[in-house]
């Protein structure tokens, strides 16, 4: 008996500790938030764009020029580059994700960019669009069709784009770019150093094209078409394209922050104003608190003593789950809060199942202690199976779903997992710790439910 009480006390202390942690790490609740240690400041709730305000952009990546085996690495290179580019602008916690094409996701490779706090889409699009796309192209073989335009004076202009064909060498193989000045003409030049793969590709291209020109394209336009004199094995190239010193400097900065390995186009955009997000948070919190109170009231009125213990277990459940959200961390969205609120309902369900069973067993002549034991034991299979099906559902939704559905599935699935712990373990420990052995009128009253006396 003493062991049970000690165990219950330990649980009480741990539970309160978790609740205290949630409270201390939340700037809105804790007035002294700014003055406390750095450790506690690290765990505020992470709010999704729909709650914190910000921009959500979906880009389509054109990978038609990339061989199929290389698509994955090109896309992760693209993600890294855009992440670096955004970081230059000091956006806090941007999320850049690659969505690969496949049976389920369908149409093509996509890049999803979330920029919290940035509600000016124009600025956001510029910030990402400014990234230069660097390409190296070689002369088209003789006899290939060339596009030409004839102007009204009869002058024929060959379209330069049809004179060159793309090679595999692009800005993604760039290690670094530096600004140099020609020692004779004082003209600014941009010197490039390729990485290992880029060096090999560049050596091959220069070897195959001695005596011909190689075109260097920036953002789809040729900026320099030098003639290759000899094979260049060391992976160094120089662009001298009539730059002003400022242009050259800017280009170096842009190249170093990363050139886009594949071209991208904007598919869809979304911005959520900060006020809209904040009112959604307040509304969600209010709804959750009222819902919790109603459920607590119902449980205590209907299930009496076990109901009270269920409310206690439910409070611990809420504290543990919120702490999990902070620690993982889980990005909370409106749909995610919905998932959390529904998992509250599921957590209650396990307790209701157990209490109904307990009551039945006591009615069938068990004393209270045996009744509690039998109630837990017999309710377990249905708690296990129903929660397993909920977990299966949330796993599938998380796996297949769109970002909104994923947010819901994550909080819902975690909620169901934690609820199995709180409903089964915590309520059981407390019920046993109460140590009600005697079956008299009063204890029977405490363990019955509904309208019965």
């Amino acid at each position: 008996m003493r062991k049970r009480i000690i165990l219950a006390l330990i649980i009480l202390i741990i539970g309160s500790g978790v609740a205290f942690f949630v409270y201390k790490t939340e700037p809105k609740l804790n007035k002294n938030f700014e003055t406390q240690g750095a450790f506690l400041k690290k765990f505020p709730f992470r709010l999704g764009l729909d709650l914190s305000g910000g921009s959500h952009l979906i880009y389509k990546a054109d990978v038609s020029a990339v061989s199929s085996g290389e698509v994955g690495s090109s896309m992760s290179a693209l993600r890294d580059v855009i992440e670096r580019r955004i970081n230059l602008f000091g956006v806090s916690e941007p999320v850049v994700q690659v969505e690969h094409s496949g049976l389920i996701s369908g149409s093509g490779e996509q890049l999803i960019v979330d920029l919290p706090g940035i509600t000016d889409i124009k600025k956001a699009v510029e910030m990402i669009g400014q990234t230069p796309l660097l390409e190296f192209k070689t002369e088209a073989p003789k006899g290939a069709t060339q596009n030409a335009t004839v102007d009204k004076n009869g002058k024929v202009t060959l379209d330069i784009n049809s004179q060159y064909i793309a090679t595999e060498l692009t800005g993604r193989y760039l290690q670094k770019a530096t600004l140099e000045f020609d020692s004779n003409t004082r003209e600014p030049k941009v010197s490039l150093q390729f990485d290992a793969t880029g060096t090999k590709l560049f050596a091959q291209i220069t070897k195959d094209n001695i005596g011909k020109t190689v075109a260097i394209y920036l953002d789809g336009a040729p900026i320099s078409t030098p003639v290759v004199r000899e094979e260049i094995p060391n992976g160094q190239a120089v662009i001298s394209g009539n730059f002003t010193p400022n242009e050259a400097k800017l280009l170096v900065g842009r190249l170093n922050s990363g050139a886009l390995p594949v071209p991208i186009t904007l598919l869809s955009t979304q911005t959520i104003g900060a006020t809209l997000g904040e009112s959604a948070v307040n509304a969600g919190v209010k709804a959750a608190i009222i819902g919790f109170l109603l459920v607590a009231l119902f449980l205590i009125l209907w299930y009496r003593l076990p109901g009270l213990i269920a409310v206690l277990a439910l409070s611990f459940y809420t504290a543990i789950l919120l702490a999990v959200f902070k620690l993982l961390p889980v990005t909370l969205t409106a749909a995610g809060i919905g998932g959390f609120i529904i998992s509250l309902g599921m957590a209650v369900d396990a307790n209701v199942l157990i209490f109904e069973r307990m009551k039945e067993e006591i009615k069938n002549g068990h004393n209270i202690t045996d009744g509690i034991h039998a109630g837990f034991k017999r309710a377990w299979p249905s708690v296990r199976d129903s929660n397993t099906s909920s977990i299966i559902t949330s796993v599938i939704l998380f796996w297949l779903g769109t970002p909104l559905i994923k947010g819901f599935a994550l909080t819902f699935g975690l909620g169901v997992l934690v609820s199995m712990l709180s409903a089964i373990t915590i309520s059981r420990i407390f019920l046993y710790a109460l140590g009600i052995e005697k079956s008299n009128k009063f204890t029977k009253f405490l363990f019955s439910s509904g309208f019965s006396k």
Partner: protein
Amino acid sequence: MFIVKYKKIFLSLSVILIVVSLIFIFTFGLKPGIDFKGGALLEVNYSSVRPEVSLLQDKIKTLNIDQALIQPTGTSGYLIKTRDLNESEHETLLTSLSLDGKYPVSEKGFTSIGPSVGSELLRKAIISIIMVILAIILFITYAFRKVSRPVASWKYGIITIVTLLHDIIIPTGIFALVAHYTGAEIDTLFVLALLTILGLSVHDKIVVFDRIRENLREGDKKGFAETVGASTSQTIVRSINITLTIIFVLVPLYLFGPETTKNFAFILTIGLFFGIYSSLFFASPLLVWIEEWQTKSKKS
């Protein structure tokens, strides 16, 4: 147990509800939101007074954005729905809404979804629903594998799916009826609500079937129909109580929760109600009916 005794009445009631809902769905139709068909949604707020809708309509007509649907929101804002817009079109639209600076306006939110993204979201939503249903049949077949007599365990799975369709079709029908008057559209959250109904409803069916499983295993001498009836009445209090608890959290979510989850809470409440109804008054009669039908066809 009256539910099993009058099973034909309950079964026909459910069938009638399903048919009526299907009629609603097909006559009123379901309008896809911009999530699914692509398009743009702009929410703006006027700092003082908002201009008349007709003034805005006339202005937007000059912009080459085709049609715009304008709905008032709050006391001084509008929701404007158009085809999907690129960044410069978005800028033009926003500046034009101030009617040459006469009505200062600020943007609260903007969404533009390309048609290809929309159709992809729809495809994902449909695949998710199908996968969830398949996984549930498999799980129930597995969980009830020991109770293969008198009704094979996979039939529990099939019954669950039939009742799930019941639980999804009826709220969708009611939504179609309501949307016919309010102009509500189906979006990702609507699909999410249906998926949640699926989850909660299976949860429920498993609890009832679990009781049947337990009573069958304990070698009840009673007939199958009676065992099912007894099991249903044993779980009825729990079923009603748990629906009440979840409704206790959903009603505040509907009344006080974020604007975006209002429709979600509404559909979920309806779905939950019919979910519990079908666990008690549709799944159990169906189970008994299948068993009787099996015995009959064996004899003949």
